[in-house]
């Protein structure tokens, strides 16, 4: 059997997002057309007013990690590590490892790996601890500073929690990190290195300097008077993305291993494509060439043809430059038949978690036969020239779907999910 013949199935899903504290509530909110974007010029985010930031909106978590993580563990973790743990525990239990129906057949720790990416990592810890160093001084700096700020922290904590000894990895590719984690997971499984991988992305960096940095890069929406209407991918009047936070995690397994333990299969990750633009540090190549190559590689890896792919879950962040370029890439790689949706219209942009959460949404769209609507699409940008689901969710019998994720640095990742 060649490595490409090793099928990779998804047996567990977990998420905590601006729409809900788990996968079910997130999915139901998406189908109901709810938005997770809100005003944040409040006491909790006092820096918005103190610095007179022109952006006063974001999409924070719907459910605080403090609801499920014990107090002592909570204070040892950066928020990006907290959300990773919340999502990973849900996915692990969903896969039947945490004492569920298939829990009798555990995976050997040496055959279990973790891949959790993040875009920014523990930036909030870095800032908080620097304030302590500059203020009261060294004695007040936490001995947990480094494990809280390191970008491999989310992956490492999940690995500890689950006892994963087959390797713990942390891809860092900005807003493509979560998707790249899925790709790495598939590589590990197809290389035969492990039987099960817990993979995903985590991000929690809604703080003054990240918002200020994105403001100065002119990438954030300033539609403060209409928070729920601020993230409007593919709309002619979009003015930037909305910064969000959250995590998404999947349990992926060799199909044979999953079958042997009687696990429920929710979907199949059939292929991935990773490319780089080498064009500009933040701006995407306007022709979408690198993005198109990622999509093409992904479907080739999956062994499906362009005509098989009837749905694309887009990266589409609601920036002026990005959205139309992505549709060029889709047309180039797949043609003009796929139906698009842009979940960031409801979720905001979860940065390093985006690809993982949206991968879950793509998989659920196939499993449930329904594509969530893109919110706020009132006037389609004439450059789009593709069918975007808007207004209401659309029923669709999907055989194969592609999920795009792109990141600052010119990172392009496309995942192809197929019906199991």
């Amino acid at each position: 059997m060649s490595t490409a013949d090793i099928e990779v199935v998804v047996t567990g899903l977990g998420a905590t997002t601006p729409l809900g504290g788990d996968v079910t509530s997130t999915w139901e909110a998406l189908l109901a057309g709810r938005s997770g974007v809100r005003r944040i010029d409040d006491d909790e985010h006092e820096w918005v007013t103190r610095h007179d930031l022109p952006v006063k909106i974001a999409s924070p978590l719907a459910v605080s990690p403090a609801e499920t993580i014990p107090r002592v563990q909570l204070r040892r973790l950066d928020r990006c590590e907290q959300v990773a743990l919340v999502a990973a525990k849900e996915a692990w239990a969903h896969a039947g490892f945490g004492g569920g129906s298939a829990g009798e057949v555990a995976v050997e720790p040496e055959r279990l790996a973790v891949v959790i990416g993040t875009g920014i990592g523990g930036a909030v810890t870095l800032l908080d601890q620097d304030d302590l160093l500059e203020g009261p001084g060294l004695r007040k700096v936490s001995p947990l500073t480094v494990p809280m700020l390191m970008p491999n922290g989310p992956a490492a904590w999940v690995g500890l929690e689950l006892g994963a000894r087959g390797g713990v990895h942390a891809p860092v590719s900005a807003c493509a990190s979560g998707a790249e984690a899925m790709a790495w997971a598939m590589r590990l499984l197809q290389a035969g290195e492990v039987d099960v991988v817990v993979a995903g992305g985590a991000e929690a960096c809604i703080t003054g300097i990240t918002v200020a940095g994105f403001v100065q890069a002119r990438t954030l929406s300033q539609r403060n008077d209409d928070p729920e209407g601020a993230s409007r991918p593919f709309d002619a009047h979009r003015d930037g993305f909305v910064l969000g936070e959250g995590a998404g995690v999947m349990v992926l397994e060799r199909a044979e291993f999953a079958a042997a333990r009687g696990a429920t299969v929710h979907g199949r990750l059939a292929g991935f494509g990773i490319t780089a633009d080498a064009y500009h540090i933040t701006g995407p190549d306007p022709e979408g060439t690198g993005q198109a190559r990622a999509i093409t590689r992904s479907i080739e890896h999956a062994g499906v043809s362009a005509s098989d792919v009837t749905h694309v879950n887009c990266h589409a962040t609601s920036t002026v430059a990005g959205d139309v370029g992505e549709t060029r890439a889709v047309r180039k790689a797949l043609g003009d038949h796929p139906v698009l949706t842009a979940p960031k219209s409801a979720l905001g942009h979860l940065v390093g978690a985006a690809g993982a959460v949206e991968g879950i949404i793509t998989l659920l769209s196939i499993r449930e036969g329904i594509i969530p609507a893109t919110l706020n699409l009132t006037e389609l940008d004439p450059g789009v020239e593709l069918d975007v689901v808007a207004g209401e969710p659309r029923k669709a019998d999907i055989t194969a779907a592609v999920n795009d994720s792109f990141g600052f640095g010119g990172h392009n990742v496309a995942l192809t999910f197929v019906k199991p």
Partner: protein
Amino acid sequence: MADNTEILAGLAEIVEEVAGIDAAEVSADKSFVDDLDIDSLSMVEIAVQAEDKFGVKIPDDQLAELKTVGDAVDYIAKNQ
């Protein structure tokens, strides 16, 4: 100046805050590492909080010698 009973109670509060161990479990005969399962990072946090609470200095070489809760109570009592 706190007496030994007060120091023990104060230390137990700190251990509960930092490590999540019920203050009632924190008795003089317990070893921080072997009985209470407190790691070296948490010991640093406990020491810093104890210094603030009791007005003592606990240098690193001294901290390494404080194996049990009773050792810490005695050290604080002598040096506050």
